[in-house]
């Protein structure tokens, strides 16, 4: 066999980079169709209010306006897991930024002007803004009709006549007995604000309503088939009536995982007699109207032995879902299954409540609740380690899941699951954690000047997905024996197509330059995939690509066997040729077979090679509604971060000196893609750690809906050093042993920062983000108190 065409683990260029550096790449933002109208929306200025009246007459009379649409005209109610959302608000508004009126006009400027001319009279209501208040007796209900909403049964459990959209329970062992048997019990609480994804391309869609209930939707979204599915359900049309196309997407991070502006664009087009309608969210709408990451309040009670062994953990996770459940209910479910960290905990009791409030709603965000949960879990562990005078690294090593242990949902941890212990060892080694200055001696008073601190944190996450999650792949051979790989996950920057191209090329034994993973997605032509979320695309898509490639090879062999008069089993596919194993000069090139073989006399056999592959999640079960026990995960990815930082005690400013990150990737499918995913994810995690978070006033109005007031990291915020490490414990059912790592780089970055900050200052921080203001004021308070 040739050693050529080995790409798995390699570093070939990412094919889409060429179009992106020249400006040729087309995003929805860049697109226009003939006769296209532009739409703008008018949103609610109140967090909660009754709509008394809407007068659209002046807007409708404006020259160039085609459609003015209000919620009163739209009966549809939709949602991913819970049908709790209207296309435009009807009778009430549930958050500041809730879309109330939409206008489609000849130009965006006319549409915006028309929106301003609409007269909306509101009767403001008292909003419920805090999730704790929202679950208290007599709280105003965000959705009084919750008990009537259709939702995914058996998976989500809304509590009727309350603000609880989902209550996820995990019960393992006997937590009260666990506390009784513990030497020490600790109570801690933690807080995460809502955070925005901030893709550089805001949400954008062009929709065209066609006759006979058909529609063509071009959208900046992560999951073409989910958009199609929900459009078909919402408008009651067959799936074949809905065509969803997705060109280049300018970042997603979970914010484009579901369905957002597509139904509105379709309705506007429908009212405009089928003229295409484009909606591009303004940056302010991206913050204020489109979803964010949920806020989280964590209360965690922990029982441990004197040696630091975890005995019992009882947690309440209170998710601030905002006005709609969207992915939030599933975040509350999935993060709960990881809710005690990658540790063996004999007795565990988790209540994860996803709570409606009158704020902009939450959705999936890279890490799917795990950054938030790990902020509590990993800070909590360091606080306890400090109290017990045990080194935080040692404390974690004593508690990591080991083969034979069971997770809190009853899954048996095996040696193939991965190595959280090794990941932590690597990052601790990289930052010199064991030899850090003043190791274990926490400052008794807050030091002055610039102070250095060292922190570590572990993490884990599994893909959150329905038990039947699947995907498929088709590989077509071209005339020149190059191939087109059709697969429907979306590569919105994470580089999956590059990794999949390598897998296909290696499996087929052809140059990677001969593999085209089709970039533009189209439900009209591409094979099915569930969604591009959860770090499951490389895993499931990789398996589907391998199967499709092997199907191609089988077809090549079938035809070659007839030409070469050889048993199929004796044929070897290698370096774009097929030969008889024991007689290598008896050979055919792929090219001779790609579209069928033609004998000298003209007779032809075979036909175009088309391989099919598919993959469906293996062995998942529904979780028991009362105990949360079951198989929730196809795989777990473990990891860790180690941080060295310097905090200026006079300004509260934190500079990250070094952040080392390690993940058990199973197999690094592509060196460059894995490394750059980690670099980008770590920086996004630093944003959540240090600067990002929504601020609301007491009326529930978002105070920082722009880049002026909501900063994301710039190049100047880079750590002085970032290093990346990978452990490779093969995932037995993963492609080449790989498991996902797209989200994980972001998780537990805040935890490591918080732990390093304690190491530096001797102050325990419980709330994110760790802005200079928060850090400085906390230091000041400690100094005054002492």
């Amino acid at each position: 066999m040739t050693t050529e065409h080995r790409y798995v683990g390699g570093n070939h260029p990412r094919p889409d980079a060429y179009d992106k550096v020249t400006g040729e790449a087309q995003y929805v933002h860049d697109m226009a169709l003939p006769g296209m109208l532009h739409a703008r929306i008018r949103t609610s200025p109140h967090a909660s209010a009754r709509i008394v009246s809407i007068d659209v007459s002046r807007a409708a009379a404006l020259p160039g306006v085609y459609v003015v649409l209000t919620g009163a005209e739209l009966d549809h109610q939709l949602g991913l897991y819970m049908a709790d959302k209207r296309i435009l608000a009807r009778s009430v508004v549930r958050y500041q930024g809730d879309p109330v009126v939409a206008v489609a006009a000849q130009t965006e400027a006319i549409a915006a002007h028309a929106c301003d001319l609409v007269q909306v009279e509101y009767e403001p209501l008292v909003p419920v803004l805090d999730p704790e208040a929202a679950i208290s007796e007599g709280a105003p209900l965000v959705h009084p009709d919750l008990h009537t909403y259709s939702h995914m049964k058996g998976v989500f459990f809304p509590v009727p006549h309350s603000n609880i959209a989902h209550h996820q329970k995990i019960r393992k062992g006997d937590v009260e007995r666990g506390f009784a048997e513990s030497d020490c019990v600790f109570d801690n609480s933690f807080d995460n604000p809502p955070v925005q994804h901030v893709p550089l391309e805001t949400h954008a869609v062009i929709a065209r309503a066609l006759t006979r209930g058909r529609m063509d939707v071009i959208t900046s979204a992560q999951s073409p088939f989910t958009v199609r599915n929900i459009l078909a359900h919402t408008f009651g049309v067959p799936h074949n009536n809905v065509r969803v196309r997705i060109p280049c997407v300018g970042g997603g991070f979970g914010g484009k995982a579901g369905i957002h502006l597509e139904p509105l664009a379709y309705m506007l087009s429908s009212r405009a007699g089928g003229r295409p309608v484009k909606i591009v969210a303004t940056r302010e709408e991206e913050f204020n109207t489109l979803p964010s990451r949920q806020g989280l309040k964590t209360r965690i009670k922990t029982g441990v032995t004197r040696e630091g062994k975890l005995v019992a953990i009882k947690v309440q996770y209170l998710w601030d879902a905002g006005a709609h459940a969207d992915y939030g209910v599933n975040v509350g479910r999935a993060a709960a299954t990881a809710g005690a960290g990658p540790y063996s905990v004999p007795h565990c009791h988790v209540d994860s409540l996803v709570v409606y409030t009158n704020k902009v709603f939450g959705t999936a965000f890279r890490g799917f609740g795990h950054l938030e949960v790990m902020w509590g879990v990993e800070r909590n562990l360091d606080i306890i380690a400090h109290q017990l005078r045990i080194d935080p690294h040692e404390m974690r090593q004593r508690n990591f899941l080991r083969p034979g242990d069971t997770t809190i949902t009853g899954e048996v941890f095996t040696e193939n699951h991965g190595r959280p212990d090794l990941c932590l060892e690597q990052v601790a080694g990289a930052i010199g954690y064991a030899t850090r200055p003043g190791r274990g001696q926490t400052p008794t008073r807050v030091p002055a000047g610039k102070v250095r601190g060292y922190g570590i944190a572990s993490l884990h996450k599994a893909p959150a997905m329905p038990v039947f999650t699947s995907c498929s792949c088709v590989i077509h051979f071209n005339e020149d024996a190059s191939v087109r790989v059709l697969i429907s996950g979306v590569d919105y920057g994470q580089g999956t197509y590059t990794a999949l191209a390598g897998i296909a090329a290696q499996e087929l034994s052809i140059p990677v330059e001969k593999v085209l993973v089709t970039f533009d997605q189209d439900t009209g032509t591409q094979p099915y995939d569930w969604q591009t979320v959860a770090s499951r695309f490389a895993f499931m898509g990789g398996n589907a690509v391998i199967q499709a490639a092997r199907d191609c090879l089988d077809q090549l062999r079938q035809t070659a066997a007839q030409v070469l008069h050889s048993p199929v089993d004796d044929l070897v596919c290698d370096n774009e040729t097929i030969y008889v194993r024991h007689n290598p000069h008896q050979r055919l090139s792929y090219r001779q077979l790609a579209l069928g073989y033609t004998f000298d006399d003209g007779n032809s056999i075979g036909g175009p090679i088309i391989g099919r592959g598919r993959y469906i999640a293996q062995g998942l079960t529904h979780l028991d509604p009362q105990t949360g026990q079951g198989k929730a995960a196809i795989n777990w990815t473990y990891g860790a971060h180690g941080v060295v930082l310097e905090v200026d005690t006079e300004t509260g400013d934190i500079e990250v000196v070094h952040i080392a990150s390690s993940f058990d990737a199973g197999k690094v499918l592509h060196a460059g893609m894995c490394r750059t995913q980690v670099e980008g994810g770590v920086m996004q995690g630093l944003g959540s750690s240090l600067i990002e978070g929504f601020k609301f006033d007491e009326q529930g109005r978002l105070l920082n809906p722009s880049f002026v007031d909501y900063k994301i990291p710039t190049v100047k915020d880079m750590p002085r050093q970032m290093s990346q490490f990978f452990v490779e414990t093969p995932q037995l059912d993963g492609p080449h042993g790989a498991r996902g790592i797209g989200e994980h780089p972001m998780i537990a970055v805040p935890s490591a920062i918080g732990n390093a900050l304690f190491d530096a200052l001797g102050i325990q921080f419980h709330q994110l983000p760790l802005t200079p203001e928060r850090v400085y004021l906390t230091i000041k308070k400690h100094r005054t108190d002492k």
Partner: protein
Amino acid sequence: MSRELPIQLTVNGTPWEGTVPADLTLLRFLRERLALTGAKEGCGIGECGACTVIVNGRPINTCLMLAVEADGAVLQTVEGEASDGQLSGLQQAFVDHHAVQCGFCTPGMLMSVRALLQRNPSPTEEEIVEAIAGNLCRCTGYSAILSAIRSAGPAREAPDAPGEAPRLAGSVARPGDER
């Protein structure tokens, strides 16, 4: 609607002459009139840098400049970066270093760097950082972008180039790091 005013300018070496509405931004002019959609609108208020193009040698947030203000100007956009169908060295460096993920910030980022290299072929690390400090990227975490820029500035290949960062496998570092 807004009054039309005559302008003439040169974009990527090609002259253009015509009238534009007085309130049309340069970004919209490039995207909608000239179909040069490489420059993107990420925020519309000059905070993200996705709309950066080079105007008379300076990197400009074109969402904040009116087309009429560019009367008589010489413009370079990302579409002028490649020549004869071949990527520029800078573009190739972005490809080689995986400095592109979603790609939405990339054209603006490239224009900021190109403007820097035009006025200073041997920028220091600090000058590079300053040049792209106004270009937000949410995907890459900037380190691959910095690697690409370092490798693209030809003068930077001199062994004692100021601010040359140590190269470690799987690691990026900036000066000031104490290892």
